[in-house]
């Protein structure tokens, strides 16, 4: 099946990628080419075959529910693009715009 520019734009929004119209066109072309190669999988008769989500027959890996040391606040914030030293800073996401909005 072929994927339209409209669908490419929708997928980019779902994937949280701000793509230019030029990128929408070129990635759309790539996706269509790749899907053209892998579409054969839709023709396979897989009626009644169980899906495999995981290669091993694993059971739940249980452990004791015990408190262990994790990352320090300093380490957790070390790589953040914006912090106030105690928390990650982000643009306002709820409520009316504040003074800085």
């Amino acid at each position, binding site marked *: 099946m072929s994927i339209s520019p409209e669908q490419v734009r929708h997928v980019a929004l779902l994937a949280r990628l701000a793509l230019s119209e030029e*990128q929408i066109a070129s990635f759309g072309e790539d*996706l269509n080419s790749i899907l053209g190669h892998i579409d054969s999988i839709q023709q396979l008769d897989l009626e009644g075959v169980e899906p495999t989500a995981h290669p091993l027959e*694993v059971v739940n890996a249980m452990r004791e529910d015990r408190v262990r040391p994790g990352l320090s606040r300093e380490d957790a914030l070390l*790589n953040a*693009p914006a912090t106030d030293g105690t928390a990650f800073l982000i643009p306002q996401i709820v409520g009316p715009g504040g003074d800085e909005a």
Partner: protein
Amino acid sequence: MSIDISSLNASAIRDSIARGDFSAREVADAAFARVESVEGDVHAFLQLAPELAYDAADRVDASVVAARADGVNPADVLPALAGVPAGIKDNMNLIGTNTTCGSKILEPYQSVYTCSAVQRLLDAGALPVGKCNMDEFAFGSSTENSAFGVTHNPWDLTRVPGGSSGGSAACVSAGEAAVSLGSDTGGSIRQPGAFTGTVALKPTYGRVSRYGCVAFGSSLDQIGPFGKTVEDCALVLGAIAGQDPMDATSSDVGVADYAAAARTGAREGGVRGLRVGIVTDLLAMDGCAEEVRAATVRAAELFAELGATVGEVELPSAQHGLSAYYIIGPAEASSNLARFDGIRYGARAEDPADVLDLYMRSRAEGFGPETIRRVMLGTYALSAGYYDAYYGQAQKARTLIKRDFASAFEDFDVLLTPTAPSAAFKVGEKSQDPMEMYLNDIFTIPVNLAGNCAISVPAGLGVDSGLPVGVQIIGDYFAEDVLLRAAAAYEGAVGFDSRPPLVGSL
């Protein structure tokens, strides 16, 4: 004294240090001297770690001194990889280094903890030379998708080293490190191993903890070693394998003595009676170079000469592996890469209008084209209306591939295929057509989908290309001991000198 790292394997380095022939510090000197002389051409590393390496060397040298003072033979107390210079793929965290995954979005990222496999490697005495170049987030088969420049193949600098673990392969091939760690989601250890004439092992899913390795495809990813010899890979696997409380998918299956298995294989009669199946339908696939096919057929003959029982086998569903993989891999990747949002780590777009704009521009500006392609493909395959047609079908095809392997391993102990359809290609040769690049992994992908183990062993130089060609030996779940025994026997029969002549003369 001057030490030639490129001529020494891991156990020779450890034993020489134990005997006092040279110190671990001298090994580090030799490794960094080698880096100095070849790295400008090869570009295997994104970051060097001399401080960490010399600290590790000093610890090894101190334990040699301490052992002698106690009247103990250092050979009896040094860990398995004492003083062995090692490269680490840059998707594995190591405190004191950045972890970039070859991506602009993670360029400034400093590791705040250490990956379990890397920690185990260091606990075994290895010297961390540095962090190795890779295709961005491990998406690729050439390292051309790295945001920080391509790695060049030490056998021919105009060619790629393969990928995504291209830097890890190239640093061993070029003699900058004796061993290295890579990760393999669809062939990212084995294919660069084949391209660079190194031995490259993808262990069984769950054999090695992935804690601290940046996730790509969580049901497919596995960390594994590169080495110049099968025994070196076995020594590294022995150091890094085993259950880890920090990774719930790591297995509690017992860890065998892999190095002993490799030594057994190298001995006379080491594979007598071993059942080896050559996978004829994969071998007949379109697009496989004649020299690669010939090397694989020759491998089967060598196994027969070594006393193994060789037969033919087919994996009829493996032909759907590529389609299933390019749905499942991107689907899992698109979920895993959702964490790169410009909030907690990584680059953030300037002056965002709101949080959605922040997410969307940070990601689009920080990700390279192949990463965007895979995230888009995965998001599409998982989106409403297409999930059953793509992801659901792919998971069912995966079941058929698992069944094929299960049935093959009823009759055989190991299977033989080529590792990659050709020898190393030129830089730029395949980078314009994503599908052309994906076809590189046609022989390696089925193993990731099924989850068992496989190794690429150099088969010598291709009769047409004059470049290294690899043969893939595939083993059953957690049968790395059998796999390494077979691989060592084959390695001995081939007698390949894994040193690229080019690098010696640089």
